[in-house]
């Protein structure tokens, strides 16, 4: 490694006096200043301000947005989860815990989660659970703002998860054709 000497460009007098660029810089910032000011007064409907006014304006999440995981129900409002525990297995931070149980013998579907908990303080929104779910029962919904005053509220239980997930119209229906 040799040393390379970088030659500094020789500055002209005007450059050295520095005032010119200062004025230029001031011109630029004031331009933006007035641009944004114009936005505030809604003048000419041209947008300079790029920031979003969050609670009023919200980001339009894309469909593949990875928000909080939630459980979904089929068209007949029955939970799709069969408590196979694969999500529990793949979950990298071990945020998911499932307690499976079974229906009585007369039911066409044998297994369902008795309790299903996702600890949102552990969840890293990786989407592995959605990826792994063979029943298409767990999805990362567009819910990203989880605010609770109590830590325990961050453990989403089955009811909360189904409430968040809602109904999903889908081909896969474990209750049908069984």
């Amino acid at each position, binding site marked *: 490694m040799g040393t390379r000497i970088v030659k500094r460009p020789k500055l002209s007098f005007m450059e050295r006096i520095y005032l010119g660029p200062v004025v230029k810089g001031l011109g630029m910032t004031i331009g933006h200043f007035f641009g944004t000011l114009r936005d505030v007064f809604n003048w000419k409907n041209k947008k300079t301000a790029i920031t979003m006014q969050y609670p009023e304006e919200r980001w339009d999440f894309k469909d593949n947005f990875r928000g909080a995981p939630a459980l979904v129900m089929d068209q007949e409002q029955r939970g799709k989860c069969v408590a196979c525990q694969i999500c529990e*297995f793949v979950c990298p931070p071990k945020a998911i815990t499932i307690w499976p149980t079974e229906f009585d013998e007369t039911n066409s579907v044998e297994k369902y989660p008795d309790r299903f908990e996702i600890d949102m303080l552990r969840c890293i929104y990786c989407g592995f659970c959605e990826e792994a779910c063979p029943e298409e029962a767990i999805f990362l919904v567009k819910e990203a703002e989880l605010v609770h005053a109590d830590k325990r509220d961050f453990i989403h239980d089955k009811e909360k998860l189904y409430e968040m997930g809602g109904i999903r119209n889908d081909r896969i229906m474990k209750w049908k054709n069984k």
Partner: protein
Amino acid sequence: MSDNGHVTLTIDGKEATVPAGINVIEAAKQVGIEVPHYCYHPRLSVVGNCRVCLCEIEGVGQLQIGCNTLVRDGMVVNTTNERVSRMREGVMEFLLINHPLDCTICDQAGECKLQDYAVDHGSGITRFEFDKGKKPKNISWGDRVVFDAERCILCTRCVRFLDEIAGTDEISIDHRGEKSQLVVRGDGKLTSPYQMNIIDLCPVGALTSRDFRFKSRVWFMKFTPTIDTSDARGCNVVAGTRDNRMLRMVPRYNPNVNDYWMSDHGRLHYAFVNDEDRIVMPTAGGKPAPYPVALSRAQAVLEGARDEGILCVASSYMTNEELFALKGVCDALGVEDRYFLLPMGEGDDLLIHPEKAPNARGCRLAGFRDAPDDWSSQEFGALLYVKPRELIELPAEVIERCKKKVVFSLTKHASDVNIPLTTWVEKDGTMVSAGDRVQCVRQGMVYEPTLLTERVVLDRLHTLLDPAFKGASTAVLAFQRMADEHPALDGLTWLSVGLLGAKLNKAEALA
């Protein structure tokens, strides 16, 4: 060349010398090649209906099934070439076309041969575009076995097990062709005391255990090789635990004891391990006390009763190490009356043993005497009692005749000092099973982190009584110390006992 009843053959280019009379699957196993199979089982007759063990035998035109092809000298077997794998892929495809996509709710998932072979030998895609066949699901075959006809691949292992091993011949096949379905004769409920073995035998999830059903996926579980302690047979088992709770036991192959099987009674004999009522802290005078407090109280009780005599009653559920630790305590106190309790029941010719406790022989080895049928009306200053976990108890009047009591028990027991017991899956140790075999139990879980095993507790008590005494730090060392002391264990080491157990040296000493 063949000699001494051995033949030499080539399997996948590997030369192997194997005993004559075995089949290609077993021969391949000996050279470390796994030939997939469903219907074949080493202890059941060969029916050759799954067709997944197809191998190419050079010189034979058609592919042959490995289970029904006996090795011959000079035979050249291919188990993996293109022709074999194509046909095997075909068989896997046939097996899977009508198999329901139940892996999500199937208890077998994770230890399912169909999954394993589908990954290893299947094509990974399906060309079957029709609706899968429908068969009844979730059929109860009595209160232990649940049957799912859709998942069944009709390997007939269960049929043959009940016919050939258990001898009850309860299952048969109804209908034919793709409608074939297993049925249980009579009222559709199994009666065999060995029926749950068919759950292990079932290579797929068609037969599941009512007891273990949906409790846990197997990949979350921890498996510990240990033995069954429901009777003196000491069937080798694998105990499955999760989150420090015992979930199931399945038999572990040991040709000298239980082969591949175990009785249902032994298999279901673990509920007390997870019992919520178990005590997790010693009590002294009815109040919770940490171990040191409880032990010094026990020391005071026992030493105070030395003159009036102490009755020591051991449990035949204890390990040898614990029994020797108890023996040490008795020696230090000069206890004369040392007995143990042994529950008896019914036995059969196969695996069920009439002695319903695992270690009566160990008790005798440690110098405890069988409890008399009628206890003398002698009064004692103190009772040192390790309570057997079930089936048998010391008669109440005997307990009453002792002024003070130090009791080890699983659940609460009225006494001056009550010390919690641990179960056999919570500790390492050895037991002496029927046939005078020394076998190991191994720790698979911890019921409560604060619990100490009886061996440690008794050794500490011994140290309190005799400050010169120093207990062994681990069960392995305790066993070694015991083996050095006792002629019947002479020459045995923890390693030589190993997974399959070892015979006692001087068995007659125990008779």
